[in-house]
Protein backbone atom coordinates (compact mmCIF):
# COMPACT_ATOMS: atom_id res chain seq x y z
CA UNK A 1 0.00 0.00 0.00
CA UNK A 2 1.48 3.30 -1.06
CA UNK A 3 2.03 5.79 1.75
CA UNK A 4 0.66 8.91 0.08
CA UNK A 5 1.23 11.15 3.10
CA UNK A 6 4.99 10.53 3.05
CA UNK A 7 5.09 11.21 -0.69
CA UNK A 8 3.22 14.49 -0.28
CA UNK A 9 5.72 15.39 2.42
CA UNK A 10 8.62 14.70 0.09
CA UNK A 11 7.00 16.88 -2.59
CA UNK A 12 6.48 19.73 -0.13
CA UNK A 13 10.06 19.47 1.15
CA UNK A 14 11.42 19.56 -2.39
CA UNK A 15 9.30 22.60 -3.24
CA UNK A 16 10.72 24.29 -0.16
CA UNK A 17 14.21 23.71 -1.53
CA UNK A 18 15.23 20.35 -0.16
CA UNK A 19 16.94 18.67 -3.11
CA UNK A 20 17.46 15.43 -1.18
CA UNK A 21 13.67 15.07 -0.98
CA UNK A 22 13.57 14.87 -4.76
CA UNK A 23 16.32 12.27 -4.74
CA UNK A 24 14.33 10.16 -2.30
CA UNK A 25 11.22 10.42 -4.46
CA UNK A 26 13.20 9.50 -7.56
CA UNK A 27 14.81 6.56 -5.76
CA UNK A 28 11.39 5.27 -4.78
CA UNK A 29 10.06 5.26 -8.34
CA UNK A 30 13.05 4.83 -10.63
CA UNK A 31 12.73 1.07 -11.00
CA UNK A 32 8.99 1.21 -11.62
CA UNK A 33 9.53 3.89 -14.25
CA UNK A 34 12.34 1.92 -15.86
CA UNK A 35 10.51 -1.41 -16.09
CA UNK A 36 7.31 0.15 -17.37
CA UNK A 37 9.29 2.01 -20.04
CA UNK A 38 11.34 -1.11 -20.76
CA UNK A 39 8.27 -3.24 -21.41
CA UNK A 40 6.69 -0.49 -23.50
CA UNK A 41 9.74 0.19 -25.69
CA UNK A 42 11.29 -3.28 -25.74
CA UNK A 43 14.89 -2.25 -25.13
CA UNK A 44 17.18 -0.95 -22.41
CA UNK A 45 18.51 2.18 -24.14
CA UNK A 46 15.08 3.64 -24.87
CA UNK A 47 13.93 2.81 -21.34
CA UNK A 48 16.99 4.58 -19.92
CA UNK A 49 16.22 7.66 -22.04
CA UNK A 50 12.65 7.70 -20.78
CA UNK A 51 13.74 7.39 -17.14
CA UNK A 52 15.92 10.48 -17.51
CA UNK A 53 13.14 12.37 -19.30
CA UNK A 54 10.60 11.47 -16.62
CA UNK A 55 12.94 12.58 -13.82
CA UNK A 56 13.53 15.85 -15.61
CA UNK A 57 9.80 16.49 -16.04
CA UNK A 58 9.24 15.63 -12.38
CA UNK A 59 12.00 18.03 -11.36
CA UNK A 60 10.64 20.88 -13.45
CA UNK A 61 6.94 20.31 -12.97
CA UNK A 62 6.52 19.19 -9.36
CA UNK A 63 5.53 22.74 -8.57
CA UNK A 64 2.43 22.17 -10.74
CA UNK A 65 1.38 19.00 -8.91
CA UNK A 66 -2.14 19.59 -7.63
CA UNK A 67 -2.50 16.88 -4.94
CA UNK A 68 -5.80 15.88 -6.58
CA UNK A 69 -4.23 12.56 -7.53
CA UNK A 70 -1.50 10.55 -5.90
CA UNK A 71 2.14 11.25 -6.74
CA UNK A 72 2.27 7.64 -7.96
CA UNK A 73 -0.48 8.27 -10.56
CA UNK A 74 1.13 11.54 -11.60
CA UNK A 75 4.50 9.90 -12.19
CA UNK A 76 2.94 7.05 -14.14
CA UNK A 77 1.08 9.55 -16.31
CA UNK A 78 4.38 11.17 -17.26
CA UNK A 79 5.98 7.78 -17.86
CA UNK A 80 3.08 6.64 -20.03
CA UNK A 81 3.14 9.85 -22.10
CA UNK A 82 6.91 9.75 -22.62
CA UNK A 83 6.81 6.08 -23.58
CA UNK A 84 4.02 6.58 -26.10
CA UNK A 85 5.79 9.63 -27.55
CA UNK A 86 8.98 7.65 -28.02
CA UNK A 87 7.09 4.88 -29.78
CA UNK A 88 5.46 7.43 -32.10
CA UNK A 89 8.88 8.97 -32.90
CA UNK A 90 10.26 5.52 -33.55
CA UNK A 91 7.40 4.70 -35.91
CA UNK A 92 7.95 7.94 -37.85
CA UNK A 93 11.65 7.15 -38.14
CA UNK A 94 10.78 3.73 -39.51
CA UNK A 95 8.44 5.24 -42.08
CA UNK A 96 10.93 7.82 -43.33
CA UNK A 97 14.06 5.73 -42.99
CA UNK A 98 15.30 3.14 -45.48
CA UNK A 99 17.14 1.24 -42.76
CA UNK A 100 16.14 -2.15 -41.41
CA UNK A 101 12.99 -1.76 -39.33
CA UNK A 102 14.04 -4.17 -36.63
CA UNK A 103 16.38 -1.71 -34.93
CA UNK A 104 15.60 -3.15 -31.50
CA UNK A 105 17.94 -6.04 -32.29
CA UNK A 106 20.82 -3.58 -32.34
CA UNK A 107 19.67 -1.90 -29.15
CA UNK A 108 19.32 -5.24 -27.33
CA UNK A 109 23.08 -5.68 -27.20
CA UNK A 110 23.05 -3.55 -24.04
CA UNK A 111 21.01 -5.02 -21.22
CA UNK A 112 20.91 -5.04 -17.45
CA UNK A 113 19.09 -8.34 -16.74
CA UNK A 114 21.37 -10.44 -14.57
CA UNK A 115 19.73 -13.89 -14.62
CA UNK A 116 20.24 -15.57 -18.01
CA UNK A 117 17.29 -17.96 -17.74
CA UNK A 118 14.88 -15.19 -16.83
CA UNK A 119 16.43 -13.04 -19.51
CA UNK A 120 15.50 -15.55 -22.22
CA UNK A 121 11.88 -15.74 -21.06
CA UNK A 122 11.75 -12.00 -20.62
CA UNK A 123 13.04 -11.35 -24.13
CA UNK A 124 10.64 -13.90 -25.61
CA UNK A 125 7.67 -12.13 -24.02
CA UNK A 126 9.20 -8.73 -24.81
CA UNK A 127 9.26 -9.59 -28.53
CA UNK A 128 5.63 -10.62 -28.47
CA UNK A 129 4.61 -7.51 -26.54
CA UNK A 130 6.28 -5.35 -29.18
CA UNK A 131 3.93 -6.81 -31.79
CA UNK A 132 0.91 -5.44 -29.94
CA UNK A 133 -0.53 -1.98 -30.67
CA UNK A 134 0.81 0.51 -28.11
CA UNK A 135 -2.48 1.04 -26.29
CA UNK A 136 -3.12 -2.69 -25.84
CA UNK A 137 0.46 -3.24 -24.71
CA UNK A 138 0.13 -0.44 -22.21
CA UNK A 139 -3.01 -1.86 -20.56
CA UNK A 140 -1.44 -5.31 -20.42
CA UNK A 141 1.65 -3.91 -18.69
CA UNK A 142 -0.33 -1.72 -16.28
CA UNK A 143 -2.58 -4.63 -15.35
CA UNK A 144 -0.10 -7.48 -15.10
CA UNK A 145 3.19 -5.82 -14.16
CA UNK A 146 2.22 -2.57 -12.44
CA UNK A 147 -0.78 -4.38 -10.89
CA UNK A 148 -3.14 -1.46 -11.21
CA UNK A 149 -6.91 -1.50 -11.10
CA UNK A 150 -8.84 -0.48 -14.19
CA UNK A 151 -9.89 2.69 -12.34
CA UNK A 152 -6.26 3.67 -11.75
CA UNK A 153 -5.33 2.89 -15.35
CA UNK A 154 -8.31 4.95 -16.51
CA UNK A 155 -7.09 7.90 -14.44
CA UNK A 156 -3.62 7.65 -16.00
CA UNK A 157 -4.59 7.04 -19.61
CA UNK A 158 -7.92 8.84 -19.80
CA UNK A 159 -9.55 5.77 -21.38
CA UNK A 160 -12.81 4.42 -19.94
CA UNK A 161 -12.67 1.18 -17.91
CA UNK A 162 -14.83 -0.50 -20.57
CA UNK A 163 -12.37 0.51 -23.27
CA UNK A 164 -9.45 -0.67 -21.14
CA UNK A 165 -11.07 -4.08 -20.56
CA UNK A 166 -11.63 -4.44 -24.30
CA UNK A 167 -7.97 -3.52 -24.97
CA UNK A 168 -6.84 -5.98 -22.33
CA UNK A 169 -8.98 -8.76 -23.84
CA UNK A 170 -7.47 -8.25 -27.31
CA UNK A 171 -3.94 -8.02 -25.90
CA UNK A 172 -4.28 -11.23 -23.91
CA UNK A 173 -5.84 -13.12 -26.83
CA UNK A 174 -3.13 -12.08 -29.30
CA UNK A 175 -0.26 -12.84 -26.89
CA UNK A 176 -1.68 -16.29 -26.18
CA UNK A 177 -2.04 -17.07 -29.91
CA UNK A 178 1.49 -15.86 -30.77
CA UNK A 179 3.15 -17.62 -27.84
CA UNK A 180 1.37 -20.87 -28.66
CA UNK A 181 2.38 -20.56 -32.32
CA UNK A 182 6.03 -20.32 -31.29
CA UNK A 183 5.89 -23.44 -29.09
Amino acid at each position, binding site marked *: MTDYSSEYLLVQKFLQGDESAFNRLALKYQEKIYWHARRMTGNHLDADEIVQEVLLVMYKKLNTFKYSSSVYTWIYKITSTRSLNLLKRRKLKEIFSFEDRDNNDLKNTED*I*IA*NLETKETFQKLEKVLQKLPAKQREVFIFRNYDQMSYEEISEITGISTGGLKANY*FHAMKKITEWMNEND
Partner: protein
Amino acid sequence: MKMIDKKIIEYLDGTLSEAGREKFEFELNSSAELRNELAKYKKIVELVEVTKNISADGYYFGKIIPKFRSKTHKRLKFFVPRYAYAFAVSAAAFIITFNFWNGAAFNSNENIFTEDKSYNLLYVYPAPLDQYNIPDDLIAETDSLISSEIRNELLASATNAGSYLQDDYYSLIGNLDEQQAELLYEELLSKEKY
Protein backbone atom coordinates in the same frame (compact mmCIF):
# COMPACT_ATOMS: atom_id res chain seq x y z
CA MET B 1 -14.87 -19.34 -29.39
CA LYS B 2 -14.74 -15.60 -28.71
CA MET B 3 -17.14 -15.82 -25.74
CA ILE B 4 -15.10 -18.62 -24.20
CA ASP B 5 -11.96 -16.56 -24.59
CA LYS B 6 -13.67 -13.59 -22.97
CA LYS B 7 -14.80 -15.67 -19.99
CA ILE B 8 -11.36 -17.24 -19.57
CA ILE B 9 -9.62 -13.87 -19.68
CA GLU B 10 -12.07 -12.33 -17.24
CA TYR B 11 -11.70 -15.35 -14.95
CA LEU B 12 -7.90 -15.10 -14.94
CA ASP B 13 -8.07 -11.28 -14.70
CA GLY B 14 -10.28 -11.53 -11.61
CA THR B 15 -13.02 -9.36 -13.07
CA LEU B 16 -15.78 -12.01 -13.08
CA SER B 17 -18.44 -11.55 -10.45
CA GLU B 18 -18.71 -14.09 -7.61
CA ALA B 19 -21.60 -15.79 -9.32
CA GLY B 20 -19.87 -15.68 -12.70
CA ARG B 21 -16.75 -17.33 -11.25
CA GLU B 22 -18.74 -20.15 -9.68
CA LYS B 23 -20.59 -20.79 -12.93
CA PHE B 24 -17.31 -20.83 -14.86
CA GLU B 25 -15.67 -23.26 -12.48
CA PHE B 26 -18.71 -25.51 -12.75
CA GLU B 27 -18.42 -25.43 -16.58
CA LEU B 28 -14.69 -26.18 -16.33
CA ASN B 29 -15.37 -29.43 -14.55
CA SER B 30 -17.59 -30.66 -17.38
CA SER B 31 -15.76 -29.32 -20.46
CA ALA B 32 -12.35 -30.63 -21.63
CA GLU B 33 -12.27 -28.04 -24.40
CA LEU B 34 -12.67 -25.26 -21.84
CA ARG B 35 -9.88 -26.74 -19.73
CA ASN B 36 -7.54 -26.90 -22.78
CA GLU B 37 -8.23 -23.29 -23.65
CA LEU B 38 -7.73 -22.22 -20.06
CA ALA B 39 -4.34 -23.98 -20.00
CA LYS B 40 -3.16 -21.92 -22.98
CA TYR B 41 -4.01 -18.67 -21.22
CA LYS B 42 -2.56 -19.86 -17.94
CA LYS B 43 0.80 -20.29 -19.64
CA ILE B 44 0.89 -16.58 -20.34
CA VAL B 45 -0.02 -15.78 -16.75
CA GLU B 46 2.84 -17.99 -15.57
CA LEU B 47 5.26 -16.30 -17.96
CA VAL B 48 4.18 -12.93 -16.61
CA GLU B 49 4.80 -14.15 -13.04
CA VAL B 50 8.31 -15.31 -13.93
CA THR B 51 9.17 -11.99 -15.59
CA LYS B 52 7.59 -9.79 -12.93
CA ASN B 53 10.46 -9.54 -10.48
CA ILE B 54 13.63 -9.61 -12.49
CA SER B 55 17.03 -9.37 -10.93
CA ALA B 56 18.83 -6.64 -12.75
CA ASP B 57 22.22 -5.02 -12.59
CA GLY B 58 22.05 -2.92 -9.40
CA TYR B 59 24.93 -0.81 -10.62
CA TYR B 60 22.68 0.61 -13.33
CA PHE B 61 19.98 1.73 -10.90
CA GLY B 62 22.62 3.23 -8.63
CA LYS B 63 23.73 5.47 -11.51
CA ILE B 64 20.34 6.86 -12.54
CA ILE B 65 20.14 9.75 -10.07
CA PRO B 66 23.80 10.81 -10.39
CA LYS B 67 23.37 10.81 -14.19
CA PHE B 68 20.25 12.92 -13.83
CA ARG B 69 21.98 15.33 -11.44
CA SER B 70 24.96 15.75 -13.74
CA LYS B 71 22.58 16.72 -16.57
CA THR B 72 20.65 19.28 -14.50
CA HIS B 73 23.92 20.73 -13.23
CA LYS B 74 25.19 21.13 -16.81
CA ARG B 75 21.92 22.82 -17.84
CA LEU B 76 22.25 25.32 -14.97
CA LYS B 77 25.91 26.06 -15.76
CA PHE B 78 25.17 26.78 -19.37
CA PHE B 79 22.06 28.83 -18.65
CA VAL B 80 23.70 32.21 -18.01
CA PRO B 81 26.53 31.94 -20.56
CA ARG B 82 24.00 30.84 -23.15
CA TYR B 83 22.09 34.10 -22.87
CA ALA B 84 25.28 36.13 -22.69
CA TYR B 85 26.54 34.35 -25.79
CA ALA B 86 23.27 35.00 -27.65
CA PHE B 87 23.41 38.68 -26.68
CA ALA B 88 27.03 39.00 -27.79
CA VAL B 89 26.30 37.38 -31.15
CA SER B 90 23.26 39.63 -31.70
CA ALA B 91 25.23 42.74 -30.76
CA ALA B 92 28.09 41.78 -33.09
CA ALA B 93 25.66 41.13 -35.95
CA PHE B 94 24.01 44.49 -35.34
CA ILE B 95 27.31 46.37 -35.27
CA ILE B 96 28.54 44.69 -38.45
CA THR B 97 25.26 45.36 -40.28
CA PHE B 98 25.18 48.97 -39.06
CA ASN B 99 28.75 49.61 -40.23
CA PHE B 100 28.11 47.91 -43.55
CA TRP B 101 25.15 50.15 -44.39
CA ASN B 102 26.84 53.23 -43.04
CA GLY B 103 29.94 52.42 -45.05
CA ALA B 104 27.87 51.99 -48.24
CA ALA B 105 26.27 55.41 -47.71
CA PHE B 106 29.65 56.98 -46.98
CA ASN B 107 31.21 55.45 -50.06
CA SER B 108 28.65 57.12 -52.32
CA ASN B 109 30.36 60.42 -51.50
CA GLU B 110 33.69 59.13 -52.60
CA ASN B 111 33.54 61.01 -55.85
CA ILE B 112 33.99 64.45 -54.25
CA PHE B 113 36.73 66.26 -56.06
CA THR B 114 39.91 67.08 -54.27
CA GLU B 115 41.09 70.64 -54.37
CA ASP B 116 43.39 69.76 -57.26
CA LYS B 117 40.56 68.37 -59.30
CA SER B 118 38.46 71.52 -58.97
CA TYR B 119 41.33 73.55 -60.49
CA ASN B 120 41.76 70.98 -63.22
CA LEU B 121 38.37 72.08 -64.51
CA LEU B 122 40.09 75.30 -65.53
CA TYR B 123 42.42 73.37 -67.81
CA VAL B 124 40.20 70.53 -69.01
CA TYR B 125 37.17 72.48 -70.11
CA PRO B 126 38.90 74.96 -72.36
CA ALA B 127 41.28 72.28 -73.81
CA PRO B 128 39.01 71.06 -76.65
CA LEU B 129 38.89 74.65 -77.94
CA ASP B 130 42.66 74.65 -78.48
CA GLN B 131 42.54 71.81 -80.96
CA TYR B 132 40.17 73.71 -83.24
CA ASN B 133 42.71 76.56 -83.82
CA ILE B 134 40.26 79.24 -83.02
CA PRO B 135 41.56 82.66 -84.05
CA ASP B 136 42.58 84.99 -81.26
CA ASP B 137 39.79 87.43 -81.88
CA LEU B 138 37.31 84.64 -81.33
CA ILE B 139 38.94 83.34 -78.14
CA ALA B 140 37.64 86.25 -76.15
CA GLU B 141 34.23 85.52 -77.50
CA THR B 142 34.75 81.82 -76.67
CA ASP B 143 35.85 82.69 -73.16
CA SER B 144 32.75 84.72 -72.84
CA LEU B 145 30.65 81.79 -74.05
CA ILE B 146 32.32 79.42 -71.59
CA SER B 147 31.85 81.88 -68.75
CA SER B 148 28.25 82.25 -69.75
CA GLU B 149 27.73 78.42 -69.77
CA ILE B 150 29.28 78.03 -66.37
CA ARG B 151 27.38 80.97 -65.05
CA ASN B 152 24.10 79.59 -66.36
CA GLU B 153 24.73 76.28 -64.67
CA LEU B 154 25.65 77.95 -61.44
CA LEU B 155 22.61 80.16 -61.60
CA ALA B 156 20.43 77.12 -62.09
CA SER B 157 21.72 75.40 -58.98
CA ALA B 158 23.35 77.84 -56.61
CA THR B 159 21.49 79.51 -53.81
CA ASN B 160 23.60 82.68 -53.91
CA ALA B 161 23.53 82.89 -57.69
CA GLY B 162 23.87 86.63 -57.81
CA SER B 163 27.55 86.50 -56.90
CA TYR B 164 28.35 84.71 -60.18
CA LEU B 165 26.94 87.28 -62.62
CA GLN B 166 30.01 89.45 -63.18
CA ASP B 167 33.00 87.09 -62.82
CA ASP B 168 34.81 85.34 -65.61
CA TYR B 169 34.93 81.60 -65.47
CA TYR B 170 38.36 81.46 -63.78
CA SER B 171 37.00 83.36 -60.85
CA LEU B 172 33.77 81.43 -60.97
CA ILE B 173 35.54 78.08 -60.80
CA GLY B 174 38.02 79.31 -58.24
CA ASN B 175 35.22 80.24 -55.87
CA LEU B 176 33.55 76.86 -56.07
CA ASP B 177 34.05 74.24 -53.43
CA GLU B 178 34.89 70.66 -54.39
CA GLN B 179 31.35 69.38 -54.51
CA GLN B 180 30.08 72.33 -56.58
CA ALA B 181 32.95 71.94 -58.99
CA GLU B 182 32.17 68.27 -59.47
CA LEU B 183 28.48 68.87 -60.08
CA LEU B 184 29.19 71.66 -62.53
CA TYR B 185 31.70 69.54 -64.39
CA GLU B 186 29.23 66.66 -64.74
CA GLU B 187 26.44 68.95 -65.89
CA LEU B 188 28.53 70.70 -68.52
CA LEU B 189 29.93 67.50 -69.91
CA SER B 190 26.48 66.07 -70.35
CA LYS B 191 25.35 69.04 -72.49
CA GLU B 192 25.78 69.42 -76.25
CA LYS B 193 28.08 72.26 -77.16
CA TYR B 194 28.39 74.46 -80.19
